């Protein structure tokens, strides 16, 4: 057992961090806030750097790395609030042509959600929607019912019927997919036992895609949570009130300390879930990372005081993105129920 980053993993993380600092600094971030259309040139640079092909086998032109490395890269994108469907593109780089290079952009939607929200609809070239037929047919229950059956809908972006949506996150335009019947379902199949042996629907292992989407989203939340600790600490060291840096007051100190605690607990959970790939580990990681990202952003705002309440400060961008991600690929209510069920089933892993 050596539950620490390897030297290679450390190098990867540092490399991605430097790369993103160079390509997506604060000026670019604020430009994206004003105009959230994705920068195709940047996207291709990310593709060329291997961000999307990270987990493709080297034989297929990929980098050949695993889920832990994917988590480390997504954490970095979360830190800098990189906009765009990075999770989808990394998960589908081997499925949709051109995505690995950053030439094409693919969106991924959870059809079990209500409504079905689609990130960056105007920027995507294609949409893949994961659904279970019962929810597609409108019976509504995403929970439990027919987890054995899946449907995958693949469609060129332009053919998806949608209504506009005023996204709470200025960095993430959204649309609500109206009817999935309007999506050209290029492959539909019903599978009876998908939990083992990865049965493929339209070339996709749907349960695994959902799991990994949740994990990578959690990794982005972790990056955001870690970043807001740094922002709060930096502000607390600089900002002077009552003749002293506010970080010398216990009230501010303890806010910052709890932010770090949340981050490190979430980090332990997310990294471990990346190693085990276990479904309950991932549910727990998402739960804790969502909480860390949302509550840290709130506390970061509190530490910043009035200045944090302005549009010009980046705090709100973290909070809004954290809210958005917390609703995606398993919100707290769902994760908690699954973890509770796992306790009865005795599935809570150890070791």
């Amino acid at each position, binding site marked *: *057992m*050596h*539950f*620490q*980053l*390897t030297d290679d*993993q450390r190098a990867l993380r540092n490399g991605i961090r430097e790369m993103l600092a160079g390509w997506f600094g604060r000026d670019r971030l604020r430009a994206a806030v004003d105009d959230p259309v994705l920068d195709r040139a940047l996207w291709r640079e990310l593709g060329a750097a291997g961000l999307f092909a990270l987990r493709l086998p080297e034989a297929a032109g990929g980098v050949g790395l695993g889920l*832990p490395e994917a988590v480390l890269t997504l954490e970095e994108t979360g830190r800098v609030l990189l906009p765009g469907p990075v999770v989808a593109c990394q998960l589908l780089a081997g499925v949709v042509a051109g995505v690995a290079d950053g030439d094409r952009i693919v969106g991924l939607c959870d059809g079990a959600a209500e409504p079905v929200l689609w990130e960056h609809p105007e920027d995507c070239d294609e949409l893949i929607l994961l659904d279970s037929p019962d929810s597609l047919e409108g019976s509504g229950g995403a929970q439990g019912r027919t987890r054995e059956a899946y449907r995958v809908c693949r469609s060129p972006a332009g053919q998806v019927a949608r209504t506009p949506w005023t996204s709470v996150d200025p960095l993430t335009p959204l649309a609500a997919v109206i009817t999935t019947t309007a999506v050209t379902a290029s492959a539909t199949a019903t599978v009876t036992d998908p939990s083992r042996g990865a049965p493929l629907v339209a070339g996709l292992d749907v349960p695994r895609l959902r799991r990994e989407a949740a994990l990578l989203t959690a990794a982005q939340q972790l990056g955001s949570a870690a970043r807001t*600790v740094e922002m709060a*600490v930096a502000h*607390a*060291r600089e900002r002077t009130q009552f003749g*002293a*840096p506010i*970080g*010398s007051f*216990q009230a*501010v*100190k*303890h806010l*910052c*300390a*709890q932010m*770090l*605690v949340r981050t*490190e*607990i*979430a*980090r*332990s*959970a997310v*990294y*471990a879930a*990346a*190693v*085990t790939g276990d479904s*309950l*580990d991932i*549910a*727990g*990681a998402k*739960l*804790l990372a969502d909480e860390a990202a949302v509550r840290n952003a709130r506390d970061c705002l509190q530490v910043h005081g009035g200045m944090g309440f302005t549009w010009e400060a980046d705090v709100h961008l973290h909070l809004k993105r954290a809210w958005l991600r917390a609703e995606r690929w398993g919100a*707290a*209510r769902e*994760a*908690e*129920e*699954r*973890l*509770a*069920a*796992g*306790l*009865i089933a*005795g599935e*809570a*892993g*150890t*070791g």
Partner: protein
Amino acid sequence: MDLSCTPEEEDFRARLRRWLAEVLPGLPAKPAATDWPGRRAYDAAWQRRLYDAGYAEVRWDADPARRLILLEETERAGAPYVGANFVGLLHAGPTIAAEGTDRQRRRWLPPILRGDEIWCQGFSEPDAGSDLAALRTRAVRDGETYVISGAKIWTSHAEVADWCELLVRTDPDAPKHRGLTWLAMPMDAPGVTVRPLRTLAGSAEFAEVFLDEVRVPVANRVGAENDGWRVSMVTLSFERGTAFVGEVVACRRVLGELARAAHGNGRWGDAVLRRRLGRLSAEFTALWRLIQWNVSAFRDAGGPPGAGSPPGAGGPPCPFELGGGSVFKLRYSHARQELYDAAAEVLGAGALDAGHPWVADRLSSLSYTIAAGTSQIQQNIVAERILGLPKGR
């Protein structure tokens, strides 16, 4: 990042499991909580069996991974707790190993490993809790002897201990961290009086120790005179490494029991309770991972100043000294209290029954945000030592 064990570790675990399965059924019944001599004998006998089987030294192994496995497997198998051997194995022993002379190590370490000698701790005082360095127990040098007067509090196993690791003030004029000295005091020395201290749980797990002109040879001093603060911090940082491994394993077991009990008594239908338990499952799994993370970092940093290190070897600061242990303790102490609050919800009015083990554990969990550094102090440590926020205020 790797969560699997090496073949050597797997082998160690398998051997340990076999051994535990073999010896545990033959253990005598546990003595009553109030039978101190019985408890000492029971705990010491268990330590002796660990020693004879070659597992005692693992507690001081430079590689904490084997320690982790030992603690995990003994807890899971329901083996006896470290009990009366706690201070010797976790505080005094590692301190002597790191800071003592060869002679001191030969004198004191083997009896600890064999369970022959029991240690207790005399650090806290009634007026020096969070502010430990403000302690006032005085030691005055008289030739080759220190003459000690004062009072210590929160001392476990004082009634049956042979030795006390004592922190005393030898220079009252120095700044408060600078005038302290670490001594090994025999508990049968004239002038030592032990008075049991009853806690809110109704039990007397702790004692006060009153010292009235107790004479301790200067040869019993570990480290230099007035260097006791640094010496004792070695001890404290060791504690924070793996001290809670067994407890986290136990908490995860209790959580499963809570879920099954709720399932059995109809409270499982209460979604608020159910989701609370689900959240705690994530919480304790993450705490377990954080232990593994910290232990791995600990190992990378060269391990704790353990039995294998030369006396006085400093080594790089371990992550626990840098506050990693504080991050763990802050969250764990809170999660443990939440766990037993959830237990009370499962029990309903049954939580008013002091005879229920969960209720007893609920009461004792109340000390977790206070003992060994309150949550307030831990937050200061995290803010100042890890995050680099300015001291003061």
